């Protein structure tokens, strides 16, 4: 799914990759792929992640990983960093999720009573990136569906998610709800339907595999 998600990135885009699975997407891009990676703590043009021995103590991404620059990188303060996000200069963000609703609502920052670290920059990424896609396991650790008719957890943003990449499928969020686009190798239509707690349209007779 990570390799498949990497194909979502169009040449020339400015992209923010959220902590976790999304960060791994970069490993599936060619070394000379024309893209500008943004991190909300103040860098456009993220270069490869570095091992601690080679790291610069002043150069991290928003997840705390030691990263590097590329020719043409720029550093800026936190206000400029989110100005870029809110003013429409971020073409794409890839985020993790606790829940995605068939309306595109996203919940990924709080589980009341269990996990309340604060939203960080997630709300602005979800609400203002030109395109928001989610990378997530199709179900949680207990096997419960993460794709639902409506979110039960506190929202990150309403109606923001355009597409979801999971270990089972690629699913778009259309005006009428979830639409199956692709299936992972070895996964059947009935398996993904069963693991999804909302209606899943399947317009293509011959569904693509990834």
């Amino acid at each position: 799914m990570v390799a498949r998600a990497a194909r979502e990135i169009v040449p020339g885009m400015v992209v923010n990759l959220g902590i976790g699975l999304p960060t791994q997407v970069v490993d599936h891009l060619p070394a000379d792929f024309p893209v500008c990676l943004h991190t909300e703590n103040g860098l456009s043009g993220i270069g490869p992640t570095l091992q601690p021995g080679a790291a610069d103590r002043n150069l991290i991404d928003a997840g705390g990983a030691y990263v590097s620059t590329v020719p043409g990188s720029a550093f800026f303060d936190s206000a400029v960093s989110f100005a870029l996000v809110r003013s429409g200069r971020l073409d794409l963000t890839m985020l993790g999720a606790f829940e995605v609703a068939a309306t595109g609502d996203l919940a990924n920052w709080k589980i009341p009573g269990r996990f309340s670290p604060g939203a960080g920059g997630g709300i602005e990424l979800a609400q203002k990136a030109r395109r928001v896609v989610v990378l997530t396991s199709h179900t949680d650790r207990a096997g419960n569906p993460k794709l639902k008719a409506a979110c039960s957890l506190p929202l990150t943003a309403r109606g923001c998610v355009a597409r979801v990449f999971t270990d089972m499928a690629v699913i778009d969020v259309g005006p009428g709800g979830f639409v199956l686009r692709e299936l992972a190798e070895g996964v059947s239509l009935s398996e993904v339907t069963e693991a999804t707690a909302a209606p899943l349209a399947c317009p293509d007779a011959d569904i693509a595999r990834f």
Partner: protein
Amino acid sequence: MKLPDKTCPIEEAIARIPDGATVMVGGFGVPGTPFTLIRELVRQGQRGLTVIKNDANERGLGIDHLLANGQVARLITTHIGLNPRAIAMLNAEEVEVEFNAQGILAERVRAGGAGLAAILTDIGLDTELAQGKQQIEIGGKTKLVETALRADVALIHADRSDVFGNLAYVATARNFNPLMAMAADLVIAEAETVLPLGGLTPDAVHTPGPFVDHVVGLAALSEEYAVVRR
């Protein structure tokens, strides 16, 4: 990952501006005014423009050419006292002029660039600049709602650019340029020097490349930059 090249011929960049566009123009007096981009806009002749600029330059300089050519319908500015033509056109109602306090114009543009809807301030509350503006109470005090300004196009002058559009300004030629370079859907920057990727130190970039759409290298410096006019 390699950052894309945004260099562009000036004719092509300016041709993307339609009639009726809202155009932000950097500069405070002479320094930082994108004279070459303005000249091309005069040559192409787009009309009915709303121009947002700190001042109206002086006669024969910068946006005065746009005024003289009848291309400007509306001017959002802070001070036009050095341009008698602008004053005369204002008095003759040949151009609509909206005055702002200078720092509030800067903040309205910045708010547009930051994706905010408005700022709340007490600047100008006791003046006629407050007329017609929404007021709200914050903590028992009255504040003016100063709405964010965005433009279709921003015309920027930089000292140096790299091909990705990272920009650096010099001295007081910075002024409104970095603010406007964040606040338009299409940002066109002319640069005295265009450097390859890596030509600017990441810590010394004033406008990050993701905000900029087109970089126009200047083959020669406009004579409008000549020191001393008055």
